[in-house]
């Protein structure tokens, strides 16, 4: 059986009462402000308004004013005004509670909840008058206190979810709020707009695998440790409270499964280096997807990889560093070799091309020389064929002259009459030495019998060509 219609009236009743009371005891009512005594009336007006407002709740006080009248007001105000005011007040009160109070009381009584107002209706009977007043006062105070427990304050950044008999009723924002007191409605505060954050990946070691909790496998079956913080915010306080048990745990689990799925699709190197910045966004998208499926009412704001965010596990850290170092070493050696190559290769190329040029030049020269020689021989041959004898003689004489001019022997004519022979030997030697220096190479390998008395130190490369020349001349001579 459901009591909802009853509750409906119960929840709306206080609002209605409040509205009526506000209209009734309005401070702007011209009749209340009739007194022009400013100093006193300014003070007394709000006072009287408040007191009467609160004393309006007890049901139907009797006409005589003095007993229940607030103290401290009498001396300040003129008696006629007060009397009139009080009568007016009572008349209005009677009209109000005569019409409205009764159904309200009945509702409350049948709900079995407050039950405090039951003395009220009986209070009109003359014999039970005083007892009814007392019980009504106590009951109304209790009721007020009970209603007062329904006030609560919601801090900025929080929301309160109000449940009525366990059923979700509404969500209210920051500020001063009122709900029906304890057995009927309750509220639960939830921090909504502030960002919460949770760390994922602790250092605790799992026994079964001997790895840390933050460790996970990459696609190439390497292990990396990833630590990060998830920042999230609630976007639906109702879902957060009612849809899922332990929603904060669900966030952590979603984060763990998401990051492992993401890293499981990455190679180790890319997880550590190039695709590292993509881990965060991918995890975020996947997490949001998972959490939406659970209807946790959570929005993932960001994934922050921590300082030592992605790294290989400690046991292999040293080896990993070695690998890195070796990689750098390789890089360095490569660079060095490259530099050396850059240095050597151009030089080698240069010398190669130089040698090539040289040999080209030598070839050209030799060809030209040989052609020249051949030309000479041909012309000599043609001369020879014209006059063989003369040419032979001339060649013989030429050769002999050449030979003799380089010989250190001195010929002296002895048949001439002079006995005195002047032989300036040293001069002749010098002279012949000078001429030998010029003509000597031609004779060096030559078959002339005279041994060269002269020191000869010809340059090797020059000597070769000359030697060849000399051999040619010798050939010519022998012919």
């Amino acid at each position, binding site marked *: *059986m*459901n*009591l*909802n219609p009853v*509750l409906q009236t119960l929840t709306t009743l206080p609002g209605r009462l409040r509205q009526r009371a506000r209209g009734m005891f309005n401070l702007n009512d011209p009749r209340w402000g009739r007194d022009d005594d400013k100093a006193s009336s300014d003070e007394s007006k709000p006072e009287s308004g408040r007191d009467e407002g609160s004393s309006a709740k007890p049901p139907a006080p009797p006409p005589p004013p003095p007993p229940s009248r607030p103290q401290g007001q009498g001396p300040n105000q003129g008696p006629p005004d007060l009397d009139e005011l009080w009568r007016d007040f009572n008349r209005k009160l009677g009209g109000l509670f005569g019409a409205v109070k009764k159904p309200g009381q009945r509702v409350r009584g049948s709900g*079995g909840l407050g*039950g405090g107002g*039951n003395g009220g209706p009986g209070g009109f009977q003359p014999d039970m008058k005083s*007892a009814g007043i007392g*019980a009504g006062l106590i009951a109304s105070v209790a009721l007020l206190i009970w209603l007062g427990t329904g006030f609560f304050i919601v801090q900025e950044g929080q929301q309160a979810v109000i*449940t*009525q*008999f*366990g*059923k*979700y009723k509404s969500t209210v924002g920051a500020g001063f709020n009122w709900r029906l007191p304890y057995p009927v409605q309750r509220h639960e505060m939830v921090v909504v707009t502030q960002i919460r954050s949770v760390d994922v990946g602790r250092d605790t070691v*799992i*026994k*079964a*695998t001997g*790895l840390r909790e933050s*460790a*996970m*496998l*990459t*696609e190439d*079956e390497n292990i990396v440790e990833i630590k990060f913080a998830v920042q999230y915010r609630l976007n639906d306080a109702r879902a957060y*409270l*009612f*849809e*899922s*048990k*332990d929603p904060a*745990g*669900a966030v952590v*689990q979603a984060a*763990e*499964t998401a990051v*492992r*799925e993401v890293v*499981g*699709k990455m190679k180790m190197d890319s997880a550590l280096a190039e695709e590292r910045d993509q881990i965060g966004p991918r995890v975020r998208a996947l997490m949001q997807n*998972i959490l939406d*499926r*659970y*209807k946790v009412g959570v929005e993932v704001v960001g994934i922050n990889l921590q300082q030592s965010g992605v790294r290989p596990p400690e046991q292999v850290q040293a080896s990993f560093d070695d690998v890195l170092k070796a990689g750098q070493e390789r890089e360095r050696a490569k660079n060095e070799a490259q530099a050396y190559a850059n240095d050597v290769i151009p030089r080698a190329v240069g010398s190669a091309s130089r040698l090539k040029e040289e040999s080209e030049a030598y070839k050209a020269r030799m060809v030209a020389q040989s052609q020249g020689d051949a030309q000479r021989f041909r012309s000599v041959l043609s001369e020879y064929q014209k006059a063989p004898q003369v040419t032979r003689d001339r060649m013989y004489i030429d050769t002999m002259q050449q030979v003799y001019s380089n010989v250190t022997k001195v010929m002296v004519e002895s048949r001439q009459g002079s006995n005195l022979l002047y032989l300036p030997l040293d001069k002749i030697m010098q002279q012949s030495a000078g001429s030998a220096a010029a003509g000597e190479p031609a004779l060096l390998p030559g078959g002339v019998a005279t041994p060269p008395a002269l020191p000869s130190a010809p340059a090797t490369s020059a000597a070769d060509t000359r030697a060849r020349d000399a051999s040619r001349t010798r050939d010519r001579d022998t012919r």
Partner: protein
Amino acid sequence: VNRVGFIASSLLVALALASSMLFVVDQRQFGVIYALGQIKEVITEPGLNFKLPPPFQNVSYIDKRLLTLDSTDAEPMLTAEKQRVVIDWYVRWRITNPSEYIRNVGLDERAGANQLNRVVRNAFQEEINKRTVKDLLSLKREALMADVKTEVLQVVRGAKPWGVDVVDVRITRVD
């Protein structure tokens, strides 16, 4: 004075009676009314409800939120290439039909978690035996989770339905 005492005592009795006959079903719960040990009614809507006082009818509550079942043991399982892996998983599930649940599984969430744990572990073992480590890690991770989920659902919705729904099966770690 006599009359006041009578009113007060009758009020107290009324209160006691009301507290035994009225009960609140929370937004997060199902309320199950037992009439002399037999399930009489299941209240799925939160709110204030009425029942007979205790000897005749009792009420118990059962969580209807999404529950998490975490893998407890880390026993290595064998993959298709006879490699041992340790996996962690979790299951998100909820009770959808309290009367079936109570009849076939148990009175509270823990009983269901226990049973479910066995079923899921068995399903994982079977599925992992068919797959290689590489599949587990990256290529067929989602497919594996989906397969395990369907397998678990088959058991759960079998001849004697458990009255539960498995929302998600996920692997957290594979080592």
